[in-house]
């Protein structure tokens, strides 16, 4: 067994103290109880605060457990929070690409659409926030599968003759997605339509959602039936911008 990391052990001790204690604790109390120097404890607390595991009272300056700890294990990011934080980047993506934008997360083995921006051509379109899409047949779903070690959904319906349903084909595709950093679906869900998606990352780089565009295959793809590099670039830029706002690179 490799050696242990001292600062993580200390962080764990601080969290145990905060969880066991009666309410909020001051920096001095924590440092005294653990027999550590105050700057050491302060550094650890600041880091824990940064990832949301610890909160500091605005008035007293005392520390307590943070809300993010309560959601640990569900890798939780509130879907309405995700929409709210991405709306300023989803709009420019729709404007620049000329296509509809969707943001998705995983819900019970499917993609849940949490945000949808219309294709900016003022045609009649319907908001499909709250609808579910298959993981294996959509660009959004492939991104979510590729970055989540979640098992492939057992039932993989063929929506078109191009839908990847075989386990080996899909695994190879997901490896490719991880390598490239983005996914596409080209007439795999709906004939005549294609989509591009990229991961949205939260704290520590954890993928919390996927963001992408979809539209007619002749607009999304070039003459060789491959997604336009320009569109891939702006989708990835937009997803990175949201990730930055969510604290992915700190």
């Amino acid at each position, binding site marked *: 067994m490799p050696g242990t990391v001292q600062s993580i052990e200390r962080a764990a001790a601080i969290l145990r103290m905060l969880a066991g204690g009666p309410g909020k604790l001051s920096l001095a109390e924590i440092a005294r109880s653990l027999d550590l120097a105050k700057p050491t404890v302060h550094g650890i607390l600041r880091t824990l605060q940064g990832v949301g595991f610890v909160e500091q009272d605005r008035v007293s300056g005392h520390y307590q457990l943070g809300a993010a700890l309560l959601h640990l294990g569900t890798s939780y990011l*509130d879907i*309405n*929070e995700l929409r709210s934080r991405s709306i*300023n980047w989803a709009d*420019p993506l729709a*404007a620049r690409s000329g296509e509809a934008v969707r943001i998705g997360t995983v819900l019970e083995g499917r993609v849940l659409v949490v945000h949808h921006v219309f294709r*900016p051509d003022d045609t009649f*379109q319907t908001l499909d926030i709250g609808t579910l899409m298959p993981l294996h047949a959509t660009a959004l779903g492939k991104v979510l599968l590729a970055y989540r070690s979640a098992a492939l959904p057992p039932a993989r319906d063929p929506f078109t003759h191009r839908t990847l349903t075989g386990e080996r084909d899909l695994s190879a595709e997901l490896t490719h997605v991880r390598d490239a950093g983005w996914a596409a679906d080209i007439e795999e869900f709906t004939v005549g339509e294609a989509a591009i998606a990229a991961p949205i990352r939260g704290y520590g780089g954890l993928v919390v959602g996927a963001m992408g565009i979809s539209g007619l295959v002749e607009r999304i793809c070039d003459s060789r039936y491959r997604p336009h590099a320009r569109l891939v670039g702006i989708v990835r830029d937009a997803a990175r911008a949201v990730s930055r706002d969510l604290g992915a690179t700190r």
Partner: protein
Amino acid sequence: MTLGSRDRYVIAIDQGTTSTRCIVFDRRGQLVSLAQQEHKQYYPRPGWVEHDAMEIWRNVERLAPLALRRAGITLDQVAAVGIANQRETTVVWDRRTGVPIGRALVWQDTRTDALVTALLAKPGATAVQERSALPLATYFSGPRLRWMLDHTPGLQQRAERGEILFGTMETWLIWNLTGGLHVTDVTNASRTNLLDVHTLDWSPESLTFFGIPRAMLPEVRPSVSVFGTAAAAFPGVQIAAALGDQQAALFGQTCFTPGEAKCTYGTGSFLLLNTGTDLVRSQNGLLSTVAYQVAGSPAQYALEGSIAITGSLVQWFRDQLELIASAPEIETLARTVKDNGGCYIVPAFSGLYAPHWRSEARGVIVGLTSYITKGHLARAVLEATAWQTREVVDAMNESSGLTLKTLKVDGGMTADNLLMQYVADVLDVPVVRPLASETVSLGAAYAAGLAVGYWPDLEDLRHNWHRAGQWLPAMDAGLRAAEYGNWRRAVERTFDWIQPAG
């Protein structure tokens, strides 16, 4: 993103209540870069809110090069600068040194409470309200200026000698940008109680009523016109528009036709309805205001319904009740239940604004039973914003004789899908969100670009407007009527809570 080196852009300065932003827009009205800086809020006493006007100007100076750098452009690529500003905030400064006299009194400041009561008792008060098409209220800048003249020794005399200047935020910024041009625009001037809304100039009678010397007032100009050329912050660039922020949002939403309306959902919410060249006087609690004026054309007017507490009710739910950790989670919590369970929250925290204007009202939560959960409360919080919108829309339809057919929305709360659906349900009209959430800045940019010919006409601006989302009404008419009835009964229960002293 690659930008052609010859491309030209328009810049908006959005001088808001909590921050100042410089935003670069391209020809399609898309945001290219943004630089933002918050400024300090001073609360010296309960009900007093102040800003340091010099700090705000320094922020503009700092943000200007930052916005250009982030866009990767140079000054010669800037076609024009437009200003949108927090309205009714009052600044007074020394004409010679340019130094503000004390802090700016912010629109939320209610220190003129007693002064307004005294003014209302004075002869001529009715005529002042008639000419300005505004009630005499602490909300507007005229009483604030009177208060400053009363409470700064020697200021009245210095003002009469022309040594002291008054302005709202756009006037202060243009003065500093141009190095000494003292001007305002019709929309900001229409929020002072001092403007004659028909002549669009200061009313001599109203100035006499307030005892305010004409010498300290800026010249009133159309909103969409070249005010002058900047000497600082954007040296050499034309300042080509100024609008109050809510009027700028109306312009940014391209509501150029009578009957078009927008609602900006923020801390409070502001619904403005374009009434064209007719000034419509409301008998039911709406404000008549100038929407905009293009140089050489008649002014366009608007009816305005101001709702004090909308987004701030969600903030209260988060910070004071601590039932959610972040504002967007209100929707998650509200979705844990299928309806309000019979519970209604009327957030009359500091009285009710439009259409009731009841300053003695205070908030209520009604319909509480042991069945009610925090999910029902969350629903009631969101529904309060929708029903308050409905009350304002009803008053608008009644006052204007126009019937609202679609509501264009913007602001932070439009990210709340449940709320937007509920607004569509209770209004029974489609609610649409444009592909540009920064409508205040966009409106200032549009107005400035229009003034210098960057965009040829209003029609061209309309082509930039695209629908990003739409919510269609889906509520049963019977349910809507029943819920509205309940809401109105809840509102009645807020009245007469604060008892007159003595």
